[in-house]
């Protein structure tokens, strides 16, 4: 699994890139580096040598963006000879500042193959690179560019977001980015970059993949500067002309930011299917249950193991939700895809993608316009040691059992596969999975429903509480994807929630009653003891009473701690069974009991010690 993730070109593991602390730290480091590193130190580093070693593979020794690896990349590596840089603090068409170039070298370009080099190269090497990159174009021989004044970010909040949405409509961002921001606008299929390569309108619901960075300040910066070399234009002029205010532009940035989750979604290894007890299993993708059910983020990467390979997957992730009712499993898979392939509006785009990627692999696609496709993959049989089939649809030793959905046929079908592209459809008598799909606003939602136990001897039975390996593969036909040329995930686990044990419901009142009882006992004992203390001749009895108080207090403390442990166990069971509410409240009860137990122990100790 780690192999897949590390080979992903998307930098999926860079979760903390935009945390405020790191941004501040980077800003400080950057400021310090520009002030502190003396020129002669940089001069000692040969920028060309660093470039030839680390950059030329993609950007080419001549800087024209056509290195040996460039054919496997879309967007293509930057052509430095044009001096067109996307990430800038300067006006559209202006050169970047040194700090702008350094920022991209340090942090990389999210959503592209460009990684960050801050941890790989020394500061002097990175600064020498900045100087060397500038030698590729004569434009840098002029005066250094002046950064724009961005002012301060406005505060966000609901009002700003609501205003931002109005601006999104009025300045017509939707023409390329779509009404819901998923990059499915009507102009999206005809977009090219300055070099003539096809380029996607950014999916604004995935801010961790924004080329110019995904935080509000970075979105605002891109609105002001545009992304030079791409269709993304500057919106500075409409502020200057008074069409909208600068505050409006900030609001737009807040709105765009609000289209993505607050944090880059984390990857959970276990997908939990919640058990529905009093609601029927959802039969449509629009069922309200899906608004509540937990969403699991499953990143995908291009299939680059089996030939023909695919380096430009359109589907970078799917969202998975699952519920079951003890008889059937309902699995909803959603993902961004601008078109319902095959869509003739996108045929040229897909054709350009295929041409641009120029695969020399045997059997590589030569055109586009096939159907969209999703495969959910399980092992054919569960093995004792949780050994899983090969992640690319199994092999002869451990076949994979798959559900295939395609945009050009109704429903879904089950197959057994022994390797990529070998899926053999099960006979009709053994087809048990049903599927319904919906494409709206640049997103597919496909709902699979299958009985937990099909009754068939050979079929994979799903049992509550048992972890079943599960993986996903997706194809965007209008992006020239088919066959082995698509996007794949690694293995995950599907766990079906179990019925909640009766004890979970009965235990809390008992625990409360016991707590009250023991509490009263301790208080009573303490009162008796202190009352006796006042009688002059009863010193010995009082001493025994203190002893009794001590014993009772300690005992109650220990019992409470024991109950706290029990609550913790219940809490864990609750979470694992998909009962987040039970898990939460048992955790609270457990926490309170633990505090009470420790309090009783410490209190008793202090009390009886001072009594001596």
């Amino acid at each position, binding site marked *: 699994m780690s192999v897949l993730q590390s080979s992903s070109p998307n930098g999926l593991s860079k979760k903390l890139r935009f945390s405020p602390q790191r941004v501040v730290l980077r800003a400080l480091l950057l400021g310090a580096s520009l002030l502190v590193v003396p020129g002669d130190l940089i001069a000692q580093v*040969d*920028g*060309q040598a660093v470039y030839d070693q680390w950059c030329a593979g993609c950007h*080419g*020794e*001549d*800087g*024209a963006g056509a290195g040996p690896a460039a054919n496997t990349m879309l967007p293509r590596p930057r052509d430095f*000879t044009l001096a*067109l840089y996307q990430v800038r603090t300067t*006006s*559209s*068409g*202006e*050169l970047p500042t040194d700090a702008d170039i350094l920022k991209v070298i340090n942090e990389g370009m999210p959503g592209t193959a460009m990684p960050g080099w801050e941890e790989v190269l020394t500061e002097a090497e990175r600064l020498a690179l900045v100087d060397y990159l500038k*030698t*590729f*174009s*004569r*434009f840098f*021989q002029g005066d250094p560019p002046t950064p724009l004044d961005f002012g301060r970010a406005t505060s966000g909040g609901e009002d700003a977001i609501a205003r931002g949405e109005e601006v999104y409509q*009025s*300045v*017509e961002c939707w*023409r*390329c980015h779509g009404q819901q921001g998923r990059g499915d606008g*009507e*102009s999206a299929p*005809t*977009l*090219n970059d*300055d070099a003539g390569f096809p380029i996607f309108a950014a999916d604004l619901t995935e801010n961790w993949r924004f080329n110019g960075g995904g935080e509000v300040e970075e979105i605002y910066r891109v609105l002001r500067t*545009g992304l*030079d070399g*791409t*269709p*993304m*234009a*500057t*919106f500075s*002029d*409409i502020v200057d*002309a008074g*069409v909208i205010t600068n505050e409006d532009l900030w609001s737009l940035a807040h709105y765009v930011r609000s289209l993505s989750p607050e944090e880059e979604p984390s990857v959970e290894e276990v997908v939990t299917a919640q058990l529905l007890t009093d609601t029927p299993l959802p039969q449509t993708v629009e069922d309200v249950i899906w608004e509540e059910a937990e969403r699991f983020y499953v990143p995908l990467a291009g299939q680059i193991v089996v030939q023909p390979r695919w380096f430009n997957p359109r589907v970078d992730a799917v969202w998975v939700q699952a519920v079951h009712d003890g008889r059937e499993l309902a699995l909803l898979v959603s993902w961004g895809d601008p078109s319902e392939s095959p869509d003739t509006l996108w045929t040229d785009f897909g054709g350009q993608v295929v041409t641009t990627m120029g695969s020399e692999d045997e059997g590589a696609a030569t055109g586009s316009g096939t159907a969209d496709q999703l495969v959910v993959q399980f092992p054919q049989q569960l093995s004792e040691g949780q050994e899983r089939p090969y992640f690319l649809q199994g092999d002869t030793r451990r076949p994979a059992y798959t559900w295939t959905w395609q945009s050009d046929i109704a429903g879904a079908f089950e197959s057994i596969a022994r390797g990529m592209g070998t899926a053999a459809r099960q006979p009709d008598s053994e087809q048990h999975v049903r599927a319904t799909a919906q494409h709206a606003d640049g997103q597919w939602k496909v709902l699979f429903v299958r009985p937990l136990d099909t009754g068939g001897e050979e079929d994979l039975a799903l049992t509550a509480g048992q972890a079943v390996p599960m993986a996903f593969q997706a194809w965007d036909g209008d992006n020239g994807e088919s066959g082995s040329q698509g996007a794949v995930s690694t293995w995950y686990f599907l766990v079906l929630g179990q019925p909640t044990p009766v004890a979970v419901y009965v235990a809390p009142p008992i625990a409360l009653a016991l707590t009250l009882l023991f509490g009263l006992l301790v208080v009573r004992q303490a009162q008796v003891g202190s009352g006796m203390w006042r009688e002059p001749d009863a010193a010995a009895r009082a001493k025994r009473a203190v002893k009794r108080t001590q014993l009772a207090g300690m005992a109650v403390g220990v019992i409470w701690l024991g109950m706290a442990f029990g609550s913790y166990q219940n809490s864990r069971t609750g979470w694992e069974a998909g009962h987040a509410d039970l898990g939460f409240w048992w955790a609270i009860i457990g926490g309170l009991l633990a505090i009470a137990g420790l309090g009783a122990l410490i209190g008793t100790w202090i009390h009886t010690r001072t009594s001596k």
Partner: protein
Amino acid sequence: MIERFSELRNTALLVSVFVIAGCGGGDGGGGDAGAADAAPAESPVDAATAGNVAGMVTFSGTAPMMAEINMGSEATCAAKHSTTPTEEGFVGGENGGLANVFVYVKEGLESLSFPTPTSAAVLNQDGCVYRPHVLGAQVGQDITLRNSDGLLHNINASPTENRGFNVSQPVNMDTNRSFPVAEVMVPVRCDVHGWMNSYIGVVDHPYFAVSGSDGSVSLDGLPPGDYVIEAWHEQLGTMTSNVTVTTGGTAEISFEFTEAMAGSPVPMGEPIDLLHPDGHQAVDH
């Protein structure tokens, strides 16, 4: 290193030429041809001695078919066209005339410099097409990018000699830009409407014209002398013609583009990489 210094010197020279051109006063007389290193004189043309260049741009052969533009999704724009608009890569006229050919003085004016016009050249977006499709402007002259459609256009200029720009215009509005260096031609496109494209010819003198559908062009008020006139077409490439202008005379030009020229490479800007003159060769450090 020596090479690099000489290149730097050339660049410095180029820059100083522009600076001096901007500040220098005109001497009012004819050009001092041959003094290439001296600062060109400003506003040097004496109308009394000037002559003209005039003629035709024609096309012979089978005219390429231009695809119809489907503006179905843009009702506002579609409504502005009485007939279905077609792409404008090739626009022929009556009597074999060829439209949208940029004709300009390529050589012969090196010793002169001209004031920057105070009026702007206008590139209008009207009915989701550029008007004109081919525009001429002088170095430094304001080019007004005008949105008359009231819907989102972006004006994405990708020159080679100059820095480009990419401007959003979501409403009816004007935005001014200019190019500081001569360049034939600067491609302009709208990414929102994939069919919209245009070319701007930027020259450092006022002697340029774009042929109309009858193919006629004229360059008026040229000082007497020998010139190289170039005609540029976006699909058929370039042709040049040597002419001699005499006082009060009209030198004839005739550019006959042919079907056979279609598909030939169309020059777009010149290589700009002074540091890496052979294209993309890295500098030897």
